[in-house]
């Protein structure tokens, strides 16, 4: 696990802090960034791992960030889990489904989130995603 990194992209500071607290309390490290631009620059810097991506963010939302990521070829080696307060997928995700590994609605159960992250980390460790 230690070599698999986890990044939370969310404009809500409270959520970033809360998830950080929880992960740290459970002995895991998590990077948090407030927006798509920061996420992309971390990816440019070589981040690979599980990305927990909020959908609704100012300036650059989750979908645009993923689109950008794909366009820049930064997506391989990452597992993207979408976090949203909305109940259902929206039309903006059209064409991006294949880059998304999971979809979690807020408010999520922190343990379930952690379990997912661990699960996808293992997947990544075993060669996921294989479509790229």
């Amino acid at each position, binding site marked *: 696990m230690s070599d698999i990194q986890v990044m939370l992209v969310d404009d*809500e500071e409270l*959520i970033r802090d*809360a998830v950080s*607290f929880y992960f740290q*309390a459970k002995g895991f490290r998590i990077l948090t960034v407030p927006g798509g631009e920061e996420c992309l620059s971390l990816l440019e810097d070589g981040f690979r791992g599980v990305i927990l991506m909020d959908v*609704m963010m100012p300036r650059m939302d989750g979908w645009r960030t993923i689109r950008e990521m794909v366009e820049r070829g930064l997506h391989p080696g990452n597992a993207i889990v979408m976090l949203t*307060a909305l*109940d259902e997928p929206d039309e903006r995700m059209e064409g991006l489904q294949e880059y998304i590994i999971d979809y979690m609605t807020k*408010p*999520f159960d922190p343990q379930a989130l952690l379990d997912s992250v661990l699960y996808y980390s293992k997947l990544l460790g075993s060669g996921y995603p294989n479509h790229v």
Partner: protein
Amino acid sequence: MRTTHRTNKMIALLATALVAGLFFVLYDDFNHLSGVQRERVVEKQIFFDQMVAMKSDPLRRLVLDYSFWDDMVKFVARPDPRWAQGNIDSNFASYQHDALWIFRPNGELVYSVNRAGKGLEHRAPFPLPTGNMGLLFAAKEKFTHFFVATGQGVMEVFGAGIYSPGNVERRGEPAGFFLSGMLWGRAHIGELSYLTRGVVMLQSPEQAGADGEWDPRSGEISFTRALAGIDGKPVKTLVVRMETPDIQQLAREMGNNALIGTALVAVLAVLVVFVLVSRQRLRNANSNLDAAQRTAQLGSWQREVERGICSWSDNLYRVLGLPIKGTVPGLETFYSLVHPEDLSRVRETIERSVREKSGYEIEFRLVRPDGAVRTMRSKGEACLVEGGNTCVVGSTQDITEQSLMESKLSTLIRQKDAFIVRLGHDLKSPLTPLMALLPLVRERCADAEAARMLDICRTSASHIERITAKTLKLVRFSSPLASADLERVPLAAVVDGAINRYAGLMARESIVCKNEISPAIGVHAVSTQIEELFANLISNAVHFSPKGSVIRITAGEDAQGVMASVRDEGAGLEPDQLENIFEEFYKEDEARHELGRPGLGLTICRQIVFNHGGSIWAESPGRGKGTTIRIRLPHAENVMNIVPEGASTCLTSRSCSSMTKN
């Protein structure tokens, strides 16, 4: 509609003919009667005149029939001293010497009356001309007493009166007046003769009174003549009534005719009143209809296709913005107003309806002559009428304001939904850290009381989360389904998925949920919604079921669709709760204080079922006896609430009015 006045004319003609006929009949009757009456009056007049003449000339008649006078006798005592008068009446008959007048040659009259055997004598001077005592005497035959005239100027008269001494000079020749009641002309001294019982003085006939009059009521002709004495003063009035049987018959006939005529006129009057009242009612009904149409901004019309005859209600002209006068109602007039962009669609719809003899409903824009563009809704029904012709009947309503309102309402509902979604999102985001951190804090909390408080906080946060989630779901499911979203959903598999959501909970409660649906059964639906539907029903059933009980899910299929049911052995429902449980936030009393159940689950179920054109209802034998929720989902072709591909969403599909049991 425009009406003719044919009925009016008929009634007027009939009334005129009847009244005219009646008038002629009565006029003829009247003329005939008048003629006969005139004849009779003349006849009777002659008779009467003869009678009067006869009574005025007793001397002529007395010889023939004395009794003729009996009815005329009336003596009146006169105070005039120049007259001596004896009243001859019934008393007279019982006395032999009832009265005695003695005229003396010196002009003295000795008047003696003997009443009841008591002699009275009266003397008075009487200017009786001397030497002319060819006096009169008479006695009715029943009198035993005879009268004797002395010829010396003394007359003894028994039972008679002397009225006009002047007449003695003209004895035997009545000249206008006379000593009535006495046999004049036979008054020779020493002769005896009869005297009638009475004396009447009459004037000459030519001074008589009115002619005969006909009394229409009794049918009699009456003649009246004032009879005067010699002095010209009235003595009595002679009234003679004579019956006229033929006139009476005629009068009866005339009365009958008049009666029949009156009855006919009455019948006609009743008829006229009836027609007038009916017409008034019709006018009122038309007026009410027009008022109703004005209020509804609706006009009605009717068209006979083959004959090309159109009739429009008054308000249709107003709705179309056309003047009532001068507009020819017709399909072309109507087409000329339809918005050019909608014209071909409208034309096609109407022509198809005529061709297929079917109904139609269409909304379109209409450009009024003043340039105003209005939205209209036209409904029509074409049908065959007698003779194989086609008649189209329908209405056209101005729904501009209505559609504007609907559009506004639709916007408002969208805004409301957007607001709820936004609110849900805004609630969910801050809930995330709360939900994430509360368990952590709880884990680190050593103080048992603080830990309990944190549990409460966590439960409350969960509750907020659930309400938010359910509300968002309800909003999401409120959107009508698009036909493209529908697919054949294998019911048993979807129900299995829903059961699995609560597998852990059911295991803890030792509740068994049996999915007894045949794998062959499928519904034409949106899979996620059907799973949500059964998940909600199972959640409810589990919640109200006692430990160790069984929940059964079954389904059957027929020509109309699929009927599924979820039956539990739980708390059951009272009859009055059966309808209410589907209402938003409804909770039966026992669950009322349960924060964990927002009361939206069955509302979501109802919405989902409605989306699929089905119905849902609850059945329960009573409290504590379990509940069965039944769902009917129609087959694809029977689904009414699905928006066809490419169509705009319809506001009314939000309504859940078809949710009733059927």
